């Protein structure tokens, strides 16, 4: 379980994120949704200790992340940002191999190779594992990054807008794979995303943020109501019944 208690972060004099308090239960998929500038990514990167918390505490499995060694935390929690640009040229397998760094410190063992192969196979990248990242399509590259954080073998996987720059087909594919990550591998997946319909279709819990604060936490059924959605996104909503659950219409 990840617990946030009165977590806040200040940028300059005007912009403040938080105080934010909520819990992410172990297991399942949690989606962080909200309009631009709501603070979703900031909260996620603070959970992943990529940004420091100005005040408040974040605990992962009961351990305060500021007091835990970064190396130990890397075996419990993995985070992937949306922008990944490397100066070195890597093959898919080499990239995924870096996910084993917390365990191997750069010396890949036979056991590490097993985890690497599993992560690659899980994301259907087996045929491309010896390709260089710059030879892949955007969707394949995104999957390779996810494979790296899966090879890290952590209880928690945090992803910052993994659907960014993916077309519809690859978005669906990515969400199905993340759903399987939670169901088959038993990981806790936390995703920042924009598309409320995607969140409703694939997440178990939705945390809605607004103006730097958490406005609503609930199951997709609880969130997918016109009044709730309008409060979050400040735009008129209609909710219709789709074949696989409620659909938000806003265009």
């Amino acid at each position, binding site marked *: 379980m990840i617990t946030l208690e009165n977590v806040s972060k200040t940028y300059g004099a005007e912009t403040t994120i938080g105080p934010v308090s909520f819990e992410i239960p172990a297991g399942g998929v949690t989606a962080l949704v909200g309009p631009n500038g709501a603070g979703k990514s900031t909260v996620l990167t603070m959970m*992943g*200790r*990529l940004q420091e918390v100005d005040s408040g505490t974040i605990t992962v499995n009961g351990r305060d992340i500021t007091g835990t*060694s*970064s*190396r*130990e*935390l*890397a*075996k419990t929690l*993995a*985070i*992937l*940002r949306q922008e*990944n*640009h*490397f*100066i*070195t*040229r*890597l*093959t898919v*397998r*080499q990239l*995924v*191999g*870096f*996910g084993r*760094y*917390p365990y191997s*410190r*750069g*010396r*890949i063992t036979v056991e*590490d*190779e097993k985890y*690497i*192969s599993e992560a690659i*196979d899980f994301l*259907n990248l*087996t*045929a*491309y*594992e*010896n390709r260089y990242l710059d*030879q*892949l*399509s955007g*969707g*394949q590259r995104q999957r390779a990054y996810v494979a*790296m*954080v899966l090879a*890290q073998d952590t209880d928690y996987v945090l992803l910052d807008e993994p659907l960014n720059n993916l077309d519809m*087909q*690859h978005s*669906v*594919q990515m969400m*199905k794979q993340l759903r399987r990550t939670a169901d088959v591998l038993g990981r806790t997946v936390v995703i920042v995303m924009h598309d409320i319909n995607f969140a409703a279709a694939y997440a178990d819990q939705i945390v809605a943020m607004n103006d730097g604060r958490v406005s609503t936490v609930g199951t997709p059924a609880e969130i997918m109501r016109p009044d709730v959605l309008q409060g979050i996104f400040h735009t008129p909503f209609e909710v219709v019944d789709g074949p696989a659950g409620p659909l938000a219409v806003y265009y």
Partner: protein
Amino acid sequence: MPDVLKTSSAGPDSAQAPASTADRPRQSGPFTDSRHRTRYILLVAVLVLVSAGSTLGILLWDNKAAPGTRAFELIVGMRMDALVVIAVVAFCQAFATVSFQTATGNRIITPSIMGFEALYTVIQTATVFFLGAAGLTLFAGGAQFFLQAGAMVLFATALYTWLLSGRLGSIHIMLLVGVVIGGGLGSLSSFMQRIMDPNEFDLLTARLFGNIGNADTANLKYVIPIVAVTGLVIWLRARRMNLVALGADVTNNLGLNHKREVMVSLFLVSVLMSMTTSLIGPMTFLGFLVATLAYSATDTYDHRLVLPVAFLIGYAILSTAYFVLRHVFYAQGAVTVIIELVGGLVFLFVIMRKGRL
């Protein structure tokens, strides 16, 4: 490319694509396949051969004394000093530039951006300006050498600890401030040079080009251990540097403190740069050239493979240029000029041919 298109049109949950790796073991590592490994070994062999050739050339070419005599040994000994300087310079430039580019996550800039050369130039210019031509002879020897090297390390360390650990915490701002300070020091130097006695200016100019002949070999006994220890530390940190090259977010996610790694790397870079610059003067284009060629030739992320190749390329280029200029054209002193001309052309050729950095 057709493969990529085929699978993306096959649909999201298409059955597992047939493994392209059936014929070889599924293994990670810095080499993608055995051909890559063979190419690397061949590359090292060629570089060692070229280096050995130019080394023997420098030692023996036109050595008029008969082998075995005292005169022969004296000549070889003197030429050996030049080779040691070449090795030290190649080592410092190669290791410093590769480490610097990894730490800053940028393969276009060189450590000179931190103002090492500008500082060297201003110190040399100020020496001549205030003490006259006699100052240059005064400003030689161990103590002065360390004063100058220490000033460079101090300057660089102050710059990045201030700019990287503060609220700004941005490597780009640090580089920008480095450029601005470097530019300021450069103007200060050219101001002093403008109002300097022309004869003194002539003496000074000789010191402002990187030149193997500039080196005071008496200082080598301090320089070599310092460079060796620094190089060893960089070597031991090579695996961390592999990770640092992936950027701050990935590095921190995998449990390594990116900022600390960068600061340690920059400190080591400043030590190496201060050593080579104090020894022979500015020669950063060599570092840039060597690093770029090494990335291109090795084509791997692993610093344990890139660093030795970068050093070997540096040694091969520098010793060959020195040999050709000194023993074939009798034009010593112009090594930097030749490296920038020929090296620049080689660099452009490699980039054009490969189509990427």
